[in-house]
């Protein structure tokens, strides 16, 4: 395989930006949707009434990661065809599990005595949820979101296969034409996106975490 520095720079500066933007969308949109699905569902599963459904629901979310993303996109092909929509769909399903699992773990990890004290003081279940349980589980939840971001970012490369655009297009071009510059440029940008998003999330995490839990 060949590698030329000039081509590499061109790939980085010229070809990448539009794809990078698409890629960003392929990461942020699924993540957002996955969050507003997985987070509330997981929270509900920790409520007394719904605990019995936990295994079944989590098994469902797990399927999102057991089935290869490529296959998920493919299965929905008759409905959604090729293009951005199936890609977003598949990536959203893929992003569900880490968020759900960590939210569950985070909420379960809230010390029993804290909840006991809150109830004793007269907090309603809702108040306790929003003022005590969710804030205290934030670090673990955010860790789950970060995992999802990294996984989605990497998987989004496959979006290009179904016409969804994204940096994957650059990488696949590199493979098809046997040009190392494209592969490496594409990889670096995807990695950069993942790392930047990860840092951003850490910042948000810091802001949302109650002071005593900051490490």
């Amino acid at each position, binding site marked *: *395989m060949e*590698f030329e520095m000039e081509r590499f720079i061109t790939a980085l500066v010229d070809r990448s930006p539009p794809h990078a933007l698409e890629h960003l969308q392929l990461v942020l949109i699924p993540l957002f949707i996955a969050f507003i699905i997985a987070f509330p569902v997981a929270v509900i599963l920790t409520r007394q009434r719904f605990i019995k459904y936990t295994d079944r629901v989590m098994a469902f979310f*797990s*399927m999102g*990661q*057991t*089935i*290869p*993303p*490529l*296959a*998920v*996109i*493919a*299965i929905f*092909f*008759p*409905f959604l065809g*090729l293009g951005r929509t199936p890609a977003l769909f598949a990536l959203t399903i893929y992003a569900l599990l*880490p968020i759900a*699992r960590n939210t569950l773990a985070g909420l379960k990890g809230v010390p029993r005595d804290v909840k006991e004290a809150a109830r004793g003081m007269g907090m309603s279940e809702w108040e306790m949820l929003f003022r005590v349980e969710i804030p205290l589980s934030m670090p673990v939840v955010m860790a789950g979101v970060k995992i999802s971001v*990294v*996984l989605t*970012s*990497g*998987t*989004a*490369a*496959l979006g290009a*296969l*179904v016409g969804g655009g994204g940096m*994957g297009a650059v*990488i*696949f071009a*590199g*493979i098809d034409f046997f040009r*190392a510059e494209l*592969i*490496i440029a*594409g*990889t670096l940008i*995807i*990695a950069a996106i*993942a*790392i930047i998003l990860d840092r951003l999330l850490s910042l948000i995490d810091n802001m949302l975490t109650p002071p005593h839990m900051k490490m």
Partner: protein
Amino acid sequence: MIGLLSGNSGWLANFYDQYLGFIAFIIRRWDQVVEYTLNHFSLVLTVMFFSLILWISVGLLISRYEKLANTAFGLGNILFVIPSISVFGIFITIPMLGLGRTSAALALILYAMMPMVRNVYRGIKSVEWPIIEAGRGMGMSARQILFQIQIPMAWPIIFAGIRVTVVMITGIATVATYIGERNLGRFIHHGIARESADMIIAGAILVSVIAILLDYLLGKIESRITSPGLLREQDHN
């Protein structure tokens, strides 16, 4: 009833058409299905064979030498930021490897590192101190402690890691078709290129079924191998 439904809604009829079409496809191309499935399994098995030997050893090593642990986990995390297709792509640029199985296998072994090493580490660390102290106090040698206490107690967590790894590798292996592997991912790959719904769906369903089956089987084994004395919550990641 199908007649009624398809009579009423063209879209629904289309749906059934698409979905049932893939069954015909699989029957038609049965030889290929078998070939690709076997390749898929052989790849996964090869990868798991080397991964088990390699990463369990590494995991045991870093659980003893903490300083290495940070490096190991750092490397693992970096890998996950790189999309699988890139890793495959980079491997084929290496002169000695090129297209084909070796590159695919090596890349997959690399991916297997994170879940395996992490679970071995966590598993070993999960053994509480008094038990090891008692073992030492009774005169067990370091090797005896490792094999009679630490590994048996860590095994459920380690096995959970193996299960996750197998499923993950099966999934990523589909992408390896882009660098020449001939496994079930190829149906998806070619299906997309030729816009053949049957092929895509056939590939997708076959891979999904195998992934779910493996996960299920390993899950069953996982619950069998836990000594009744260990009432632990296992991590699945």
